[in-house]
């Protein structure tokens, strides 16, 4: 009996440091009701398994109160790092400050935080995505022709970054001319209306890039209604409708974010940070182009 007790105690003493050696990471996801974030979670889990760290995943169900509670739980558990994909940039700030007080490093994924101290923000590289779209579009129209840019809500970061990447890259093609750049506010209905007007003004249009898929789908509808053909359309975000339109050949391409890559990058960088690596404030995650298979 005594022997058994002793053996148990030894085992206990051995086990605890072993558990303590393997760092625990916490991940709070805004919602698992959306395939995008499910992929994000799966990517994170795969990366955690590969790095031999344990990962606690909590679902905020798109509810800022639940997100706050989840982060508090992780602080209580004294996890090594908290990765959060906030439901809301403002709502997450107080929780981040709490984690700061508790000395737990915090990473944000996809959506940033408006306050608090964040080690590193991991999100899609919208500038690179815009560039990717520009290069694809230029290639598809044979490096020459008139193109149109449908812009998101003026002043938003997505509109700014996607537009910058696109414009910088298009500038490299001397024979590709942007004949119109108008805001359609990320909205399908507005995209249709604005493109309708541009079609009227521009007799020759060879390509269109829109800052999101909603606007490009609106533009496709406008061109269809006006009977204009021979236009290459490129969108952004790879929403279901757009992917379907790509398969049907109505849309040439749409730039897709890679949620799984965001998740895995988050975990990898967190592990690297625990290992003493210094990280930049923002780590861009590559995008990829969805084209007809």
């Amino acid at each position, binding site marked *: 009996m005594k022997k058994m007790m002793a053996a148990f105690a030894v085992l206990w003493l051995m086990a605890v440091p072993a558990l303590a050696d393997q760092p625990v990471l916490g991940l709070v996801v805004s919602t698992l009701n959306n395939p995008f974030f499910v992929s994000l979670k799966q990517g994170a889990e795969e990366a955690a398994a590969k790095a031999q760290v344990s990962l606690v995943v909590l679902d905020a169900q798109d509810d800022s109160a639940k997100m706050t509670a989840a982060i508090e739980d992780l602080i209580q558990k004294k996890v090594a790092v908290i990765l959060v994909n906030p439901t809301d940039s403002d709502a997450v700030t107080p929780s981040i400050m709490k984690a700061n007080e508790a000395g737990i490093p915090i990473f944000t994924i996809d959506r940033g935080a408006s306050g608090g101290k964040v080690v590193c923000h991991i999100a899609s590289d919208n500038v690179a995505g815009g560039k990717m779209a520009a290069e694809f579009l230029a290639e598809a129209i044979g490096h020459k022709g008139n193109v149109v840019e449908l812009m998101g809500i*003026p002043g938003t970061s997505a509109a700014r970054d996607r537009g910058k990447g696109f414009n910088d890259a298009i500038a490299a093609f001397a024979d590709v001319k942007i004949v119109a*750049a108008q805001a359609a506010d990320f909205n*399908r*209905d507005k995209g249709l209306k604005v493109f309708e*007007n541009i079609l*009227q*003004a521009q007799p020759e249009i060879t390509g269109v890039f829109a800052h999101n898929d909603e606007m490009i*789908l609106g533009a496709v*509808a406008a061109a269809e209604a006006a009977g204009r053909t021979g236009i290459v359309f490129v969108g952004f975000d790879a929403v279901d*409708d757009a992917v379907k339109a790509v398969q049907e050949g109505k849309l040439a391409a749409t730039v897709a974010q890679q949620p799984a890559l965001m998740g895995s990058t988050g975990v990898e960088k967190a592990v690297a940070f625990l290992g003493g690596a210094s990280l930049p404030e923002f780590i861009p995650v590559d995008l990829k182009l969805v084209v007809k298979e």
Partner: protein
Amino acid sequence: MIMRRTPSSSRLPVLLAILVGIVALLGWHEPRFIEINNLINILRQSSMVGLIALGMTLVILTGGIDLSVGSLVAVSALAGAGAARAGVTFPLCWGAALAAGALLGMVNGLGVARLRLPPFIMTLGMMGFARGLAFMVTGGKPLTGFDASFRWLGIGGWMGLPLPIWVFGGFFLVVWVLLELMPWGDQVRSVGSSPRAAWGSGVNVPGVTAQVYVLCGVASALVGLLLAGRIDSAQPTAGVGYEFGAIAGVVFGGTSFSGGRGSLVGTVIGVLIMTVLESGMNMLNVNPFAEQVVKGVVIAAALVLYGRTGQALRG
């Protein structure tokens, strides 16, 4: 004592002159702008905000306001699309959309007329409620891919004109007859001019008030159907911000916020001016940041101008 005629009648020619002036200016700058094709485009683009603005005119004539129109567009489009998806036969699914718009409009009307909630508060609440409802039932995702029959209202045409223009024109005619030819229209204006005097004069003030909100809801539902048809998608975000365009058109068209005075024709011209401006700036590729500024300046200038002209006409 200075005798004055009701100013609204003298505003219409001024408004019309502003519209023609802007069109002429844009046409001179960009001849494509005044091609028949584009004029049809502009009418079609006007039809959405225009329909709502017609309903809004009635509401504002009673001294109220309806901020919930954009949200009602989304809810009724989703109701129609949902019914179509569930296999409801084609004209009936339109009925579902119209019923949804009318029902929520009725809730607005009863809140304002019976519970005496200020219209601003009541419809602000409805704006949030209906938008939230749209997000809840769809989980934030649009319903897409409909039969051509469901989409017909948005994409079809008749006698060379797109159906949205016919719907807009038809609704205008109905509302115009109600307002200008029927005793009901007189009661709407009386309620807006002085609800107390209207009540004292035997007008059914709560009834008339509720009715204008129902009509405004029906107008929103029509827009929901047109929109869902045109873009082949019923979106929970549909119609965001439509209230601004509609209210701007109504006020630009000379309908007074204080109620009782205004006209549907003015509203239509007001909406046309706004659409022409937007469309013209798209065609001239005006910088999107500058676009807002230009729009603001033109509206302010036009209001000042027609204020002046109105005074001159009144003597």
